[in-house]
C-alpha cells in the first residue's frame, strides 16, 4: 500500500508546487540581495558583525539549495534509499569545508605570527587609484613582491 501511494506522488508535485517553490526562491534571493546591499554600509572594523551577516547569507543559500534539489530536482519525492545514496556521500562536504577553512585560517595566523613581511604587506595601503590603467602600474610592484608564487607569475607578464 505504501508503495502505490509513493508512485502517485512520484509522477509530479503539480504546478501549484512549482509556483510555490518559485516564489520561495525569489523571496530568498531578494532577502540575500537586501543583506548584500546592507553589508556595503557596514564598516570593515565591525568584522564579527559582517561575519554574522555573511553567515545568514550562507544559511539562506543552503535553504535555496534545498528547495532546488528537493522540489525542482524532485529528490524529495524519491524513495528513501535513493535519497540516502545521494545525500550521505555529500555529507563528506561537512568535513571537507570545516577542515579546509580551519586549515586556511590557521595558516594565516601562523604567517601573521612568524612572517613579519607577510604581516607588513597587509598593512601598507596602496597610494591611490585614480584611473584603472594607472592603478594597475602602481600596483604591479607591491603586488609582485607579496609572495614568491605570484612573483614568478608576474614576471612572465
Amino acid at each position, binding site marked *: 500500500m505504501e*508503495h502505490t501511494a*509513493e*508512485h502517485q506522488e512520484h509522477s*509530479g508535485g503539480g504546478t501549484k508546487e*512549482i509556483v510555490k517553490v*518559485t516564489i520561495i526562491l525569489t523571496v530568498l*534571493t531578494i532577502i*540575500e*540581495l537586501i*543583506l*548584500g*546591499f546592507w553589508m*556595503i554600509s557596514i564598516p570593515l572594523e565591525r568584522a564579527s558583525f559582517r561575519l554574522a551577516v*555573511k553567515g545568514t*547569507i*550562507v544559511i539562506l*543559500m543552503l535553504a535555496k*539549495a534545498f528547495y*532546488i*534539489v528537493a522540489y*525542482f*530536482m524532485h529528490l524529495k519525492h*524519491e*524513495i528513501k*534509499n*535513493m535519497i540516502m*545514496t*545521494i545525500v550521505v556521500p*555529500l555529507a*563528506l*562536504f561537512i568535513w*571537507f*569545508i570545516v577542515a*579546509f*577553512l580551519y*586549515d*586556511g*585560517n590557521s*595558516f*594565516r595566523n601562523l*604567517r601573521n605570527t612568524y612572517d613579519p613581511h607577510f604581516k607588513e*604587506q*597587509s598593512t*601598507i*595601503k*596602496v597610494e591611490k*587609484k585614480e584611473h*584603472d*590603467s594607472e*592603478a*594597475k602600474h602602481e*600596483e604591479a610592484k*607591491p*603586488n609582485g613582491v*607579496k*609572495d614568491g608564487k*605570484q612573483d614568478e*607569475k*608576474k614576471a612572465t*607578464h
Partner: protein
Amino acid sequence: MATTATAPGTKLWGGGKSPFNVEYGKLMMWYFLMSDAFTFGAFLISYGTIRFSTNGWPDPNEVFKSFPFAPEGVHAPLVFVSIMTFILIISSVTMVLAVHAGHNMDKKGVVRNLIWTIIGGLAFLSCQAWEWTHLHHEGAWWGANPFLNHDGTASSTNFTNYFFTITGFHGFHVFSGVIINIVMLIMTLTDQFEKRGHYLMIEKAGLYWHFVDLVWVFVFTCFYLI
C-alpha cells in the same frame, strides 16, 4: 530468504522491480551530478581556504559595480549579477514546467517551455560574456588583478584566478546545458519521445539544468555576496 520467496512483490530488494523506483538513466544522472558536485565543491572550498589564509580580499561591490550601457563611472553593485541570478532561476522554472508537460505527454508544452529555457540559458551566457569582457578591459584576467583589497592594501592574483576559473567552469556547464536542451528540443520536434511513449529524457536533461542553477546559487553567494 524465505520471506522474499513467499512474497516477492512486497520486498524492495526482493527482485523483479527497481529498488530505487527510478529508471537506470536517471539514477546514473544523479550519480554523475553528485560527482560534479564534488568537483565544484573542491573548487569553492579551495577558494575559501585561500581566502581564509589571506589577510585582505577585494570588495566584490567595488569589482562588480558596472552595468551594460551605463556610463563609465556608474556604481551599481550587485545589480547586474542579481539579474543574472533571476534569469537562471526563471529558466530553471521553465525547465520544471517542461518536465511536467512531458509527464502529461503534452508535446506543445514541452516545446514551449524548452524554448524558454534555452533562451534563458543563452541570456545568462550573454550576461557572463559581457561581464568577462568588461573585467578583461579593466585589466583583470588569470594572473592579473587590477583591484585593491577592501582595506586599500595590495591584492594578489588569487582573486581573479579563482573568479575566472570557477565562473568559467560554471559557464561551460551552462553552455553544455543549452546544447543538451537544444538536442532535447530537436528530439521533441521530430516526435522521438512520442514514438517512445514517454518523455523521461527531458527529465534527465532537467536534472542537469537544475544542477547548473544550483551551482550558480553557490557561486553567486561565494563571489558576489560574501
